[in-house]
């Protein structure tokens, strides 16, 4: 099995799926000739041409709106927002047009929206966001967030094949830092959670880049047996897997890189409090970025984004409870 980076896996998914399905096409700013701001789409235009790897005007609302139009007449657009942060410029099209169309009209909108998300490299307030909670909150939109290279490829293929609008949150920090074995050819990863490491004393629930932080923090923590659950899919949320981990471990730490209020972790915590109550041996603890725009200067950024030590500390305290 070939080994590739998280970024290469995403590229591979696009390439394979475009080869297999002529309806699939990529659109975004600088994705064509330039190969994309992060080079995810590098080489695709050479193979598929400028119609299928389309350089669009700088217009997020238009990228999403025209994608809706193309999708309802039978194409499978994969839109790229150059940074997840810019999705706010196309919010209306995604939430009000795409998200609600099937409920109101029975008309499916099979679009995929790739959102390079997350911080940790001095991107500042407009290049570091994790906006997934906005779309978890909007009915009719699915939200995915892979953490491994293998899942990045498989989940993107699943997203493209899904008949609904799907936000694909690819974490910029993982692009080149995460490598792994990735199966060749086409495969779909289910929109469900994955146990990244099994354990019994406590479970850390996370997604995206925070899965790696959680794994590092809990690998050798005072001899405790700590499970790490990688959510992978935020909508649909794998409630059964979450409750199963809670039933076995009874102590839970939920990690969000997103701003704490109403982040995905808040939904997970509420779910556990209501339906996992009798399995709890301690309060549900959250580690999350405070409600602050992500700052630019490295010490400031480090102070707000959850670090490995923050997760360690939270686990230690909860274990001792």
């Amino acid at each position: 099995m070939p080994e590739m980076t998280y970024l290469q896996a995403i590229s591979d998914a696009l390439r394979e799926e475009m080869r297999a399905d002529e309806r699939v096409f990529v659109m975004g700013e600088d994705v064509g000739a330039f190969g994309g701001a992060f080079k995810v789409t590098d080489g695709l235009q050479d193979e598929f041409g400028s119609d299928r790897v389309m350089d669009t005007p700088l217009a997020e609302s238009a990228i999403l709106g025209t994608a809706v139009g193309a999708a309802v007449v039978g194409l499978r657009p994969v839109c790229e927002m150059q940074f997840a942060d810019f999705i706010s410029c196309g919010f209306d099209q995604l939430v009000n047009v795409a998200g609600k169309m099937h409920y109101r009209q029975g008309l499916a909108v099979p679009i995929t929206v790739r959102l390079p998300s997350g911080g940790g490299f001095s991107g500042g307030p407009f290049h570091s966001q994790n906006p997934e909670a906005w779309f978890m909150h909007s009915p009719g939109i699915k939200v995915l967030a892979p953490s491994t290279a293998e899942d990045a490829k498989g989940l993107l293929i699943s997203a493209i094949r899904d008949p609904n609008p799907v936000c694909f949150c690819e974490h910029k920090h993982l692009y080149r830092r995460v490598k792994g074995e990735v199966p060749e050819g086409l495969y779909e990863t289910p929109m469900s959670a994955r146990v990244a490491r099994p354990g019994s004393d406590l479970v850390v629930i996370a997604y995206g880049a925070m899965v790696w932080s959680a794994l590092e923090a809990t690998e050798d923590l005072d001899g405790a047996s700590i499970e790490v659950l990688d959510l992978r899919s935020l909508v649909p949320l794998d409630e059964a897997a979450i409750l199963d981990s809670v039933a076995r471990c009874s102590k839970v730490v939920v990690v969000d890189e997103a701003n704490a209020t109403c982040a995905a972790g808040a939904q997970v915590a509420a779910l556990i409090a209501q339906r996992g109550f009798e399995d709890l041996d301690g309060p549900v603890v959250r580690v999350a970025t405070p409600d602050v725009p992500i700052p630019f200067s490295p010490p400031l950024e480090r102070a707000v984004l959850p670090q490995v030590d923050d997760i360690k500390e939270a686990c230690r305290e909860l274990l001792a409870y």
Partner: protein
Amino acid sequence: MATDLTLGPHKAAIPPDAEHLERDDRVALLRYMLLMRMIEERAMKLYRQGRVPGSFYDGFGQEAVSAGPAFAMGPEDRLCILHRDLAAHLVRGVSPTRILAQYMGRSGGPTEGRDGNVHFGDRSLGCVGMVSMLPDMMLVATGMAMAFRLRGEARCALTWVGDGATSRGDFHEAMNWAGVQQLPVIFVLENNQYAYSTPLSLQFAVDPVERARSYGFPGVRVDGNDVEAVFEATRQARERALAGGGATLIEAITMRMHGHAAHDDMRYVPDELLARWRERDPIERQERKLVALGVDVEALSAEVLKEVDAAAEAALAMPMPDVATVASGVFCDGEAEALGDGKAPWSRFRQVSNA
């Protein structure tokens, strides 16, 4: 679409600007306008009787702006229809019964009670239902046109947009995108002088039709209350689009004769403006033309009224939606189905199946 009306003894010469319309087509155009008006009048009564919940919007006085362009669309073309364009739904083949059921939030309407008034589109007839953020639909239409170009298909997409909606960013993004990619999309700007209570003078500094050129395609101004003129302008735009000539902005000048919605008494509109436009009522104008051709417009009117009455009775008998289904259908669980083809009653499309 044939009618049972017999020709009178005076058959006028066909005027040059309607050379693409046969007599039946011209009658059909009137019929669609009458149907729209009578459905809306009926719905307004139902609204005042408390049977139509929420808000009620109509396109009184603007019937030509939707009947004309829709009539020029082929079955494979795609439409995004706004709230004062009810005739477009009728042209595509949505039944009056379902429309009235839709207003009343009944099961059996095109949205099964999930959206109200004219926020609907029958996907099997190639119509995309509007959202309330109106100019959004310009981008959807642009996207459909983009797909047609990518696939090399001889089809076009058409959307309506109001004078108010041109002020939002999506108007610019759609115009720009359509221009830069030279897409087969037609934007019908229904300039009815007011966006709710906001007159044109507070809406834009330069009329949108004059700005179309700066996006790289023509802007065409037309009398919005002359249904055959609006039809003709759209027909030409479509021809251009299908020939690879790109987009067109058609500005149809008209007047919103009723309030923004039933709850608006439009006291901000000067009475003399309304009086002037009343004389230019599109239905009356078309009727006069057809009377000159010997068409019995009164009989047509009566027939349409009967149809609307029957539709209202049928719609009133339809049940309210089953609340047990309220959370279903948020997501599509099966295969994504693309929009279907609509009816195309213009005689030129007769070779295409027109059931």
